[in-house]
């Protein structure tokens, strides 16, 4: 017989509730079970009204970031067996709650849009592929793994008090394009992230680095953006290729 664990889950339905609450569910857990599977069990067997996003169940679509026993993680990649006998789940912070664990990610995506998250090449798109060396591509290795799950954004204390702070995911994306050898919009990109709600707002708390499920390391990406901006202030001829 499988061991049971207690799940305490944040509940809030703006249509009917004035205040949030935590509901407690007892879930039979088998070896290999993930938190997402436990949520499925609750939704299918104990309370169909439980709302949460899910899709790929393999850590690539970014639907199911949530606060699980004190840390932001993907529910689908988190083994229940690693969590102790009582598991508390809350929605991501700094975003309005739509229902239960579903939050409104509009501000997260608006900030992503603000950094122009697309390649801005110098030359027109013609002919075969642009040449990019393996080393140039290697710089992008972990950054392009970002799945836009929002875990970093929710974990960032700065996002908590500055509504306009761009946040770790958008800034990491800015660095991803800045450092792409094919991109030719350095000045424009750095200008977009260097105001008071940009990279210098970051307090280097390392929360984003700690929670990122894909090892994107937004902290290091933000540090590089700061370095690029300052180096250009000190030496107008500085080029990113010089590093």
């Amino acid at each position: 017989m499988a061991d049971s664990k207690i799940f305490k889950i944040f509940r809030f339905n703006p249509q009917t509730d004035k205040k949030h609450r935590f509901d407690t569910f007892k879930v039979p857990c088998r070896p290999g079970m993930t938190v997402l599977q436990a949520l499925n069990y609750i939704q299918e067997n104990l309370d169909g009204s439980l709302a949460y996003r899910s899709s790929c169940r393999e850590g690539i679509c970014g639907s199911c970031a949530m606060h699980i026993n004190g840390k932001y993680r993907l529910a689908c990649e988190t083994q229940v067996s690693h969590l102790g006998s009582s598991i508390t789940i809350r929605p991501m912070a700094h975003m309005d709650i739509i229902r239960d664990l579903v939050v409104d990610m509009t501000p997260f995506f608006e900030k992503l849009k603000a950094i122009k998250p697309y390649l801005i090449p110098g030359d027109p798109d013609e002919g075969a592929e642009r040449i990019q060396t393996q080393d140039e591509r290697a710089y992008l290795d972990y950054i392009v793994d970002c799945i836009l799950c929002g875990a970093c954004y929710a974990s960032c204390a700065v996002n908590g008090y500055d509504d306009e702070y761009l946040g770790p995911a958008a800034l990491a994306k800015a660095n991803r394009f800045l450092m792409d050898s094919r991109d030719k919009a350095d000045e424009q990109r750095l200008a977009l992230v260097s105001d008071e709600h940009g990279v210098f707002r970051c307090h280097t708390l390392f929360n984003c680095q700690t929670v990122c499920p894909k090892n994107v390391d937004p902290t290091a990406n933000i540090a590089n953006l700061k370095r690029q901006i300052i180096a250009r202030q000190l030496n107008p001829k500085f080029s990113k290729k010089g590093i």
Partner: protein
Amino acid sequence: MITSDVIVVGAGLAGLRAALELNRHNVKVAVVTKVHPVRSHSVAAQGGINAALSNHPRGKFDSPELHAFDTIKGSDYLADQKAVLKMTTEGIERIYELEHWGAPFSRTEDGRIAQRPFGGAGFPRTCYATDKTGHVLLHTLYEQALKFEAASERADMQIFDEWFVTRLIVHNGTAKGVIALNINTGEFEIFAGQAVIWATGGSGRVFGRTSNAYINTGWGMCVPFYEGVPLKDMEFIQFHPTELYTNNVLITEGARGEGGFLLNNKKERFLANYEDSAKAMEMAPRDIVARNMQREILAGRGVEGKYIHLDLRHLGKKKILERLPGIRMHAIHFAGVDPIDEPIPVAPGQHYTMGGLDVNLNTESKIKGFFAAGECACVSVHGSNRLGGNSLLETVVFGKIAGEYASAYFKDGGGEDVPVSFLNQILREEEDKIEQLLKSKGKEKHSAIKHELGEAMDSGAGIFREARTMNASLEKVKELKERYRHIGLNSSGRIANFDLLWALQLKGSLDLAEVILRGAINRQESRGAQFRTDYPMRDDKNWMKHTIASWKDGTVHLGYSSVDLSLYKAKKRHY
């Protein structure tokens, strides 16, 4: 009412590529999708995308014609040949375009797009970005969509995410838009347009053991099916050889392309013992490898009697980290195994729907103004068995074509206008349907029906099929359909009601299951992914034809249509 020139349903690779094309033609587009674009299942594609770029030293003499031949042979000759050649020819431009848009492909030593060997291909022609190709391509198209959305010089493009489409609006045989439910408010809206492009992806969740995401319920294929768009070749279901034994998460074919071995419990590379895979071994096409794996397991030579080992250890840590980092994490997260040190437990499972909405090589259907592209559509370029790396190719090639043809259709004036009273009537019908479902208080649980459906499809419509078990599964599906009429919901609110959404989609899964089984039972032959133990040979004389299923008054009717064999003659397949 939201009005646009063209409505695109679905925002995976095919839907986004179609939307970008419409925008290029200065046509106003509304993209309606039940999940945020980057949550679409295209994101989970791993191994790569095929095109004869000839970047690999062993691929110097590759060409679109050879790519087409491999695809047609792989399809067991059920693919429409001119459509395949169109895909392999235009595919080259589409790959370069993705690169121009910023897709971070892995690179060769001379800085070109890297290519790796894949099953059933004469040359290494699968372009890749480590083992996260779908992820980087989907994010690239999403980035372009954001760029186009923000740009002011062309017609509007707007993405409506977390809107669930419940109905295709067809008036006098012409598609005029959709009805969709805003998941987060529970309110309905009419999306009216002069044309509709459908790009809702696959339907793997009709089965129990599948690599597909939860969202691939089959509902997307059923909405147009109910309104008169036929489904083609639905019995052809791809079983991917290497899904993680524990939870069916995909382990890319690229793992074998990079040199991985499949081993039975005697540590033998058993593919050598089968005539159809003796030469190509791990690089034989998916239908053949999956069957021979299943034969090993059935013969008692599976590891622990249940699965096969995918051994990557001899590739070395460096290559695994460089080229297969994603599947390494899957094995660690979901099987507790690090492929650097241990073999991965794998078994075949449902992976891809070769069939789909019946369209021609211009993505047009029999309903005027209705176009479809990607996995939800069937052109057919995959016939009865798809080659790995061709599905991503299909999405971008035919996504673009759909955008192009829908633009032309719109600029030609589209269909005749639809009266607003008609739109409002359809909207009321959908409202009533949802209200009724929300009020349903029956004894049956839709989640239980879903699980039983998965088991019935796994056992009856799996790798090895025969009339007896398929008929038993069909009976089961009919029983489940009856029980579905008596389900009860335990959540009645309108906001983010996932209970409602899963219940609604289950109807699609059930109807699609019937289409799959009926087509499979009728087709008395073995071809590509369909292997019948009671009819083990391919029968070109009687069955070189597409199955066409139509929906009339709530029942499924089967018919057939011809295959385009104008380029290559059908031969027996050996690898």
